[in-house]
């Protein structure tokens, strides 16, 4: 089970001073018992778990970071190794539902390496779908142009 706290509420619940609560949260974070969100302009929230939960870093994290169209994760996705925007675009195509594809379109604005993207697409036999999605994206938003040699 998980519960969400502000720092003040957590300190109150545990009967601790603010700094002590912060120290405890820091230790718990290292044990994957706490995930944070917000900070800076937004009030920081602490999600506290009963048992260790790793923070995801896969497809849905990339989509929700770069796309204004957010997605509710259908599964937890963890990537060990380099998992970039290019990998996420291919996974978006593989997942295939309309909402996911619309969110994936926004990733074209952040592609760093078209060569890697096309190599992944070739491997997964999704080159045609990739080009189609990119063309659709260009109709409705400003995205990076695809180099001619890949079309």
């Amino acid at each position: 089970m998980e519960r969400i706290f502000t720092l003040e509420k957590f300190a109150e619940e545990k009967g601790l001073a603010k700094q002590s609560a912060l120290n405890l949260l820091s230790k718990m974070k290292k044990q994957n018992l706490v995930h944070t969100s917000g900070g800076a302009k937004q009030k920081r929230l602490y999600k506290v778990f009963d048992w260790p939960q790793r923070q995801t870093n896969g497809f849905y994290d990339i989509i929700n970071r770069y796309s204004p169209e957010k997605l509710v994760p259908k599964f937890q996705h963890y990537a060990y190794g380099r998992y970039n925007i290019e990998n996420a675009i291919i996974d978006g195509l593989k997942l295939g539902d309309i909402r996911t594809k619309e969110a994936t379109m926004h990733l074209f604005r952040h592609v760093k390496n078209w060569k890697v993207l096309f190599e992944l697409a070739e491997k997964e036999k999704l080159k045609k779908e990739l080009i189609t999605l990119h063309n659709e994206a260009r109709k409705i938003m400003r995205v990076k142009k695809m180099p001619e040699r890949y079309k």
Partner: protein
Amino acid sequence: MINTEDQEALFKLISEYLEKDVECTAIGDTAMMFLGYKTATKDIDMVFQNEKDRGIFIKAIEKIGYKERSIRGVYDKKREQHKGKPKMFSRGEERFDLFVKNVFGVEITKDMTQRNDFIGKKTLIIKILPKEDLILLKAVTNREKDMEDIEAIVEKEKSIDWNRIVDYAASQRNNSPWILHDLEEKMQLLKKKLFIKKEFFDKIYEAESMH
């Protein structure tokens, strides 16, 4: 024994030795570790979609020093003779139990609650089933300590979809004749620790009576 961090490092290493990208599903203790229910295991249970993928994975672990061994003594006689039995590879205390398509006749669902990508020379994608499916598969494999693991899951998770478990078991009855019996046995033991509605037991008896 292998802990969570070492397991992750091992999979990352395996991905460096794969000749091709491989997708598989982790079950048992391995899945429990990915989901945070457990922190260590002696055996790593995985299900592949086909013999080819299992073969590619086997080649990779053999390069790391794992050798094939007999399943005798680990599973009971009826499972030893089942065509859905796994291939076993071990190195010291750790062991891989590698199944293809089904676990002693119980087909793996396509549902996924978690996906882990180990990106090395090639990519090893390990999917994790929902907890209800893990419970059923634990009930079926029937090894020592499987009951303890089932208890660990139900104690941590407040809501278990017993309907899903019973329906899944009933759907697999033709492939695995003892599945409902094994499940009912485990549920009877669990009843001592938590409340399980009588309707789920009735559903099992009804499903069994239809065969």
